[in-house]
């Protein structure tokens, strides 16, 4: 993930680098050369005579447009939503309830945590990230969600057990309240998960929830070290158990071959481009 606040004044202080002949698609200099000035609004552009600083309309930042690809071995098909597309009829996430492959159009821009795409869930909606497990290693799971005025625990993040129906794994929030940036992080080291991954992120808050930057990886070192204990969490409420069961039932229903005909978005695009 590459994410840095970047008020444009910074461009001034590093003008020689920003003006290099490097063939960059963006004109913002490499963030590694900049100091973090995210909170700065005193731009110093008031000029002579002590005029009051102008009001900052917006800030600009530079991100990797491919999202969090540092997690190159992410076991989810598309944990960062950067490859979601309105023209994909069957994407690597389910959306619901009622669950289906109809995935909402991605939210774009600074609202996302990494990259330029993420998903916004209305209340009582959820997404289920699809991926593979590891037969040899524990898996680490991290997910990020940004609630509006809600506690992190109001989001249910869990690995749904589809194979044996024996036990879901709740991925706990790292903190009770969102961080200063508004994001909650959910993280756990799961001792064993040798089956297909269905990671439920369920918005139990009263408002919209933004979800982004979700990573499932085989833990480094494989299974050579001592087996870690499972994450300690309180048992899910009956309501959450019911919602998880509904998700589980949908997954069973949606598995298998599905090749739908061209969707309306594709047809509309085709019409536009062949005008």
């Amino acid at each position, binding site marked *: 993930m590459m994410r840095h606040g970047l008020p*444009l004044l910074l*461009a001034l202080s590093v*003008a020689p680098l*920003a003006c*290099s*002949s490097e063939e*960059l*698609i*963006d*004109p*913002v200099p490499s963030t590694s050369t900049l100091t973090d000035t995210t909170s700065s609004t005193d*731009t*110093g*552009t*008031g000029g002579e005579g002590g005029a009051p600083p102008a009001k*900052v309309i*917006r*800030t*600009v*930042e*530079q991100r*990797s447009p*491919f999202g969090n*690809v540092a997690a*190159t*071995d992410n*076991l989810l*098909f598309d944990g960062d939503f950067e*490859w*979601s*597309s*309105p*023209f*994909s*009829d*069957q*994407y*690597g996430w389910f959306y619901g309830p009622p669950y289906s492959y109809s995935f909402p*159009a991605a939210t*774009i*821009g600074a*609202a996302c945590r990494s990259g*330029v795409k993420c998903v916004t869930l209305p209340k009582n909606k959820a997404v289920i990230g*699809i*991926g*593979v497990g590891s*037969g040899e290693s524990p898996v680490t799971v991290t997910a990020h969600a940004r609630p509006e005025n809600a506690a992190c625990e109001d989001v249910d993040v869990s690995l749904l057990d589809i194979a044996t129906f024996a036990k879901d794994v709740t991925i706990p929030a790292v903190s009770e309240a969102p961080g200063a940036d508004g994001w909650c992080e959910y993280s756990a080291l799961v001792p064993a998960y*040798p*089956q297909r991954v269905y990671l439920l992120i369920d918005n139990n808050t009263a408002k919209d929830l933004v979800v982004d930057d979700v990573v499932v990886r085989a833990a480094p070192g494989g299974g050579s070290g001592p087996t870690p204990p499972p994450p300690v969490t309180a048992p899910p409420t009956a309501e959450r158990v019911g919602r998880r069961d509904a998700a589980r039932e949908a997954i069973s229903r949606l*598995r*298998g*071959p599905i*090749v739908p*005909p061209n969707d309306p*978005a594709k047809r*509309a*695009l*085709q019409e*536009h*481009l062949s005008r």
Partner: protein
Amino acid sequence: MLRFRQARPSSAPAVVLAGGALAAVWSCAVSARAASFTPEGALLFEPNAVVVLDFEEPAPEGEPQPAEDPTALHGAHILPLGAFQGVDFEVSLPKLRQTYRASAWIRGHEAVVSLEVSYSDRPDEVSALFPTGRVTSDGWVEVANTHLRVDGEKATKVVLGAFSAAGADVDAVEIVPDGDASAFPAIPNAPCGGASDSAACAADQVCLYSRCRTFSGLVPPIPKDRDDVTDYLESRMTLLFGPFRERTYDLPNSLVAIEQMRHAQDAWSYWNGFALAVRKLHDGHTSTSNIADFSLRNPRPIGVCFIEGDADLTHTAAPKDPAYLDVLVSHTGAESTLGLAPGDRLVSVDGKHPIAWARGLVDIHWSLPPVSNPRTFAELASSMNRLLSRYASKIEVIRCDAASGTCGAPEVISISDLPPIALDATVQIPTCDNRPLRHLINSPDDHGNTAVNGVHQSIVIESDDVEKIYGIEWESLYTTNGTDGVGAGLKQAVSTWKTEGARGVILDHRSGFGGTIEAPKILWSYAVPRRPNDYYEDRQRAEDEQPSAEDGQALFDLAKSRNQINYAGSNNPVTTVPVALLLTEDVSASDWLPLGMKGAPKVRLFAPFETNGAFSTRYAFGYWLGVNYVLAVGDTFLPDGTTTNGTGVSPDVVVLPKQSDLLAGKDTVYEAALAWVRSELAP
């Protein structure tokens, strides 16, 4: 065509800056060749921009109208696009040969922003804009692409288009020169002799429709975090691609293409490396596409459909290829036929057997039809007319005379020299459905599907209401609940057969586009005694390898005990009525259909070769319409524990369409099926 104010940016910015800051920001922006922001966050168009659009003036009636918005990036207005709405801006560029950075800012949802350059009466080159990573705190996202070549002297039209599937705001469009004529090949859009004439074009060009066309603008620039992005994309294939056989035999070839990405010198080579890696997985559900598939129109459509078969009349004039079946004209439309007729033979394309030539397009053609089975090429034959238009220079054909039943000597036709059709001309191209003839009373002449419920059905035209041989012709197997999609049509057909006392049935599924298992189940229930059929499983673990048959059988049995397998058939099938299933081209559920039918008491599969063998499902991913890929995600176990993706269903009766039959107006595969059905008629 929607026209918005196009102005030099010197008059456009409406922001006031202190002198020092202004100079610094602007001088920086000049070198970076893109719009910049004041310290306060106001956007400044790049001073050298040759096109800026800020939507401050009303649009013509009927076009999307600008809206006043206090968070406009420039001026006071933005252009909101509704869902499924698109807009075009025809722009004027200098009469110079130079390259440009084109950019726009969007907000809300993804939008496809493209730059189309016409050197003729139609778009000749297209570029897409991709996120640069610049985002603003109030929701704007910059999309851009760089070094887009435009030969201004020759360009007849340049159009910047925007389309959003979900709705998006657009603002602050600009086009800025970022390179001179040195970035161009000696001849920018040189004539070329088909895809085989690679020497005619630059490294980032492809010979398409007989002209070298720059493809680097179709894809994003090489990522700055190239190593990570490459590793990430590689792991999509190594960790997540599902089919076992392809992972064993084809994945190594894919990884060679991935390695090429690591050393690619230009954007096209980099992203084409990824797309090639996906296609090299050689799987019927696994494919790639990009915006060129949508926007570059075919100037030389060919109204001829081809099919693989046996050129029994012309092997003396042109010997049979040892590896591939012959390619014959199945049927034609009314125009743009090259003078070809059913029974004529396509001998070679640019010196190669047509199928060998088409297979070679895997290196450049993103929408090459995928197939799992390494021994069948029906998809290439049925799409041959489109491939010839795109990538062929010269073809060699043998024409035959239906009246005398004789054929001539090989003859060369230059595809490159065909006159392009007028832009507004409409050419009716027949559907290439692998059916030389249609056999139902309402089958459309153009071989399309006009049935309300997707299933053409009647007594076949060769039969009558005494003989009662019923037929259906259909392509899709998509239904989610047995009543939507083709579900109702298939159920209606089965009901008719039962209530009307069909004595024979011919299922003509020679073009099968797949769908869901629910549709085959309707036909299985009619003809097949219930039996365990298969177990489909998504890939489970990153480390999974091809299991042994013993392990596979254990897995199948476990799934059976959990009621997770597919059963084919019913407890009360009709086993007195002969059912012929005709196959040629198939994928997914259209593979499952014959898998479940095969071996039933009164069922016979008639086909030239095995089916596709695409026993999986897939997920689709798209990077701003520039790089789209679809990946198969699982495999299917048979009751004996073997996996079947990549291994098609064998026909019970192998029938090759014969040249002599096509010439005589006969449909070889159908005739064989009809003869068998008649020999087995129910009382």
